[in-house]
């Protein structure tokens, strides 16, 4: 069963408005006062924390090939090759799943 069309349009419209508003808010923020240091620090940590949470949440499901692929990708990406890291990570997972 798929969600109703109204809900789908509403979900995407909301996502689009929120995302564009956040992008614009940065311009507005920089043009008005600098944010409170604690707020700036919180926002500065939010991006990395979201990414860590997404990775930890996915790897927590116990997929050994996924963990191995991630370790390989991190090793290569930390040497400044993010595109290669994606490819090698996928190849590692593909090999382990054969």
């Amino acid at each position, binding site marked *: 069963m798929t969600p109703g069309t109204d809900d789908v349009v509403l979900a995407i419209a909301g996502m689009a408005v929120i995302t564009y508003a956040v992008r614009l808010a940065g311009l507005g923020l920089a043009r008005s006062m600098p944010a409170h240091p604690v707020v700036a620090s919180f926002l500065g940590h939010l991006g990395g924390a979201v990414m860590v*949470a997404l990775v930890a949440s996915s790897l927590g499901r116990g997929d050994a090939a996924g963990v191995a692929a991630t370790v390989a990708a991190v090793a290569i990406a930390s040497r400044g090759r993010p595109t290669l890291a994606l490819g090698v990570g996928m190849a590692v997972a593909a090999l382990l799943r054969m």
Partner: protein
Amino acid sequence: MAQAGGDATDRISRDGVWQGVRASVPLSVATAVLGAGFGVAARQASLSLGTTVGMTAAVFAGAAQFAALTLWQTPLPLVPIWLSTLAVNARFMLLSASLESWIGRRHGLKAIAAMFVMGEGTWAVSIQARAAGSRDFGVYIGSGVLVALVWVASTAFGYLAAPLLGDPRRFGLDLVLVLFFASALTSTWRGSRDLAPWVAAALATRIPASIVAPEWQVLVAALVGAAVGAWRDARH
């Protein structure tokens, strides 16, 4: 923070646009892989082609779109989807804020319109061009438009090619999102000040589902991590 003259861009030229396009070729390859991965993942999550391409074109933020897919079910949990979009994309605020000092007020309306395609990749290309001395806002536009086209086209391609690929797990395509974030984390790492918030965020994903429902897991873990980071910074 905007300065009159000085740091602000002076013009938008065709040369600048081409410079942005050329500087974004490696970025486009990564975007294409990610876009195709999103198309496959969206088909797996039972989205229609129209919904998939519509989301990609309207939202234009890969991480938030993947996050929304993990919540996609019937009935749609609208508020969790929106909050997750806000949480995942809150970082854009910092990126566009840092671009503002470069753009200045000269291209007010154009800058506001251009924010629609603002993402990490185009932001990074623009910052690098600025560091190299460019004063041409065309660099940003060239990069942003190229990435937008690649993103939408590769998403549609991934969606349509999904049945030919068979089980996307065979190629590790189901891992593109995790691999992308894990790779991005290596350049996001700012040293020891990130250690405590990252460990906290990772541990917080282990909170039992009886306390935090699965669709809130990532959001709660991220807020815990960012709070620990802000608390740590305030003490130092």
